[in-house]
């Protein structure tokens, strides 16, 4: 134990500078669309393995379905899709995860209501509703010394009875629907639901059927969707903060 303490004393602060500074992202990034270069050839939509892209009269990317596999970027002959190292931010509705955004959507009511009721502290219960566990390990990573979610007044609790917010991953499988609903029912009002990851947002990439669902919204009312496969820890924290109204909805 003393050796562990000695090691600790020699260590510097591990916590990330984010959000005071922009996160240093080094992974492959998500596709970002440049309308000026798009000639609507549809190669991206054909290459997408999860039907996240539609190209008709215009280009549309559903980030709720996107698994950041970069097939569309490889397939685009005009360079209209480029990888960008930007945090794949959360949104308060599936519609807000459309890239580019349809005009006129601004959903702030939930965020403001939550802020009024919960103030600046939020207790979170994690619920795996049938994921690949990638999102769950990223949620776990939010609690490590680097991402240190407790800096934000956010704490994970052991029971839904103690929770203000349910952090849900997975496609909402048949075998977890009842447990998910009971977990939600055990929470006191006011309560929030944040769906984490592509499969919680849309079921993608697993096809819905006898075992898999379309995501959290199959069983629970969702306040915030965090896209990504899996989303980075910063994006998950942002999703929780968005839900409690501490940061502005990304528009």
């Amino acid at each position, binding site marked *: 134990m003393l050796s*562990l303490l000695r090691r600790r004393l020699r260590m510097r602060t591990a916590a990330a500078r984010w959000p005071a500074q922009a996160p240093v992202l*080094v*992974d492959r990034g998500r596709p970002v669309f440049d309308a000026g270069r798009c000639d609507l050839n549809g190669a991206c939509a054909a290459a997408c393995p999860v039907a996240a892209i539609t190209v008709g009269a215009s280009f549309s990317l559903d980030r709720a379905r996107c698994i*950041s596999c970069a097939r569309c970027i490889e397939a685009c002959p005009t360079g209209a899709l480029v990888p960008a190292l930007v945090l794949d931010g959360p949104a308060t509705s599936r519609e807000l995860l459309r890239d580019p955004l349809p005009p006129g959507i601004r959903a702030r009511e939930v965020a403001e209501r939550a802020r009024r009721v919960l103030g600046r502290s939020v207790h979170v219960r994690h619920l795996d*509703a049938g*994921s690949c566990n990638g999102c769950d390990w990223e949620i776990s*990573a939010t609690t490590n010394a680097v991402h240190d979610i407790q800096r934000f007044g956010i704490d*994970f609790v052991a029971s839904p009875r103690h929770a203000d917010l349910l952090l849900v991953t997975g496609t909402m499988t048949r075998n977890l629907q009842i447990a998910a609903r009971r977990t939600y029912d055990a929470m006191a009002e006011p309560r929030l639901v944040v769906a984490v990851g592509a499969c919680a947002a849309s079921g993608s990439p697993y096809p819905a*059927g006898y075992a898999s669902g379309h995501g959290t919204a199959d069983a629970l009312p969702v306040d915030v969707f965090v896209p990504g496969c899996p989303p980075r820890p910063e994006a998950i924290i942002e999703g929780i903060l968005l839900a409690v109204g501490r940061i502005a909805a990304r528009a």
Partner: protein
Amino acid sequence: MTVVPEAARVTVSPSALADVCGTLVRERSARLVVMTATDERERGGGYGLYFLFALPDGELRSVEAQVDPARPVYPSVTRAVPAAHWYEREAKDLLGIEPEGHPDPRRLVLHDDWPRGLHPLRKDFDATRTVARVAHPHEPMTGVRGEGVMEVPVGPIHAGIIEPGHFRFGGVGEVVLQLEARLFYTHRGVEKAAEGQSVDRVLHLAERLCGVCSLSHAVAYAQAVETLADVTPSRRALLIRGIFLELERLYNHVGDIANLCAGAALQLGVYQGGILKERLQELNAEVGGHRYLFGIARPGGVRRDLDGPAQERILAVLAAVEADFRGYVDALLETESFMERLRGTGVLAREIAEELGAVGVAARASGIARDTRSSHPYAGIARGAVTPVVRAEGDVRARMDVRVEEAYASFALVRALVDELRDLAPGDLARPVGALAPDRWAVGMTESPRGENVHWLMTGPRGEITRYRVRSASYNWSVVPFAVAGNLLPDFPLINKSFELCYACLDR
């Protein structure tokens, strides 16, 4: 890599399965690697059963039978080969093939509210349909009865940030007499979803069988495809796979040791190990584009290169992390209050590990020298380059020791692989994968951080994927209850973390 030659395949009548399989195990010391059941009625067959064995020298043997579709019943193999017990229950649930005389014929994959007589892996079952729930009686799960005995239900939703599973502890006071686990809550129907899909589409499903063993699964799948398409990836692609696969092992092993500290409430250990894991995952993102290494492998090779600067970056980060990790492990070993919790806790007996076909860290910590990298080398690893790390005790401490030693070996292995990669010409990352050979099957095998993953892939008359069967290392769940019985209930989290199994790739 793992072609099973026709000569190593034997077809027998269903009634002879138990005898032939039992003889292989008894007289040739064969080990059951996987059993796959198929629906071949559309092709004029019945229900296929494919028992795949590995002989001590690694050679594979397949014992196969066709079960009459009019009466899909056969004498169970489990009493002769106990390692078949979950496979047979799975085939019964998903294909409706009845193993007569199975000692534990309860449902495994499908839960009690699934209607009788409906089997999702049968070809005439529509994958897109949803199925109404049926009422079912609640039955006690453990067989422990008597005065003062109680049953403690836990889950499927747990108190920590972990995956879902239901546990029923039967015991007296704090002592657990029997643990029964109800799993497959995250069953997503991946095997069914793969049928009829393109090779590339299934790759995305393979990568998402399990987040933390994603690359091991992707490579095992790619190996099976490459066998069927008769493609050999370039040396460069194999080495890149090998390097990333060891990076996958490293972030898992280091993180799992940190989680072991969580199981024993040693917060300083959780904190310091968590930082090391984070550094390794950021390295993954930096050189691989993904913290969990999705999108690295593809059938025919790899999607990511490792150029000179990336190679140097890997060596630099690993050198720093290794030095810190060694200091961290030394500090843990000196923390007697922690080590005392680990010794003698959660012992998995070697005989049980052997009989039930345990793999990976759990098998090696119980004295079984079993490591796919050594028995079936792949991904640029030379035969003999990996020696299985073995401990005899079978307790939590032994499983920690195995992870520590393997992490040290992985640091060295990455250096060796990078050394070789450095001298290779750039390019030739992925070779084209054409049509798959029709009416054949092949397997791919990798050693994930948790143990052996087996991907069994069968094609139809047009070379399409008709059956994709994944046996992940997390089948080790079947041995966990044996390591828990006799221990204190509060030690369960610690024992559980020492096995560190996934639910996602078991449940599929």
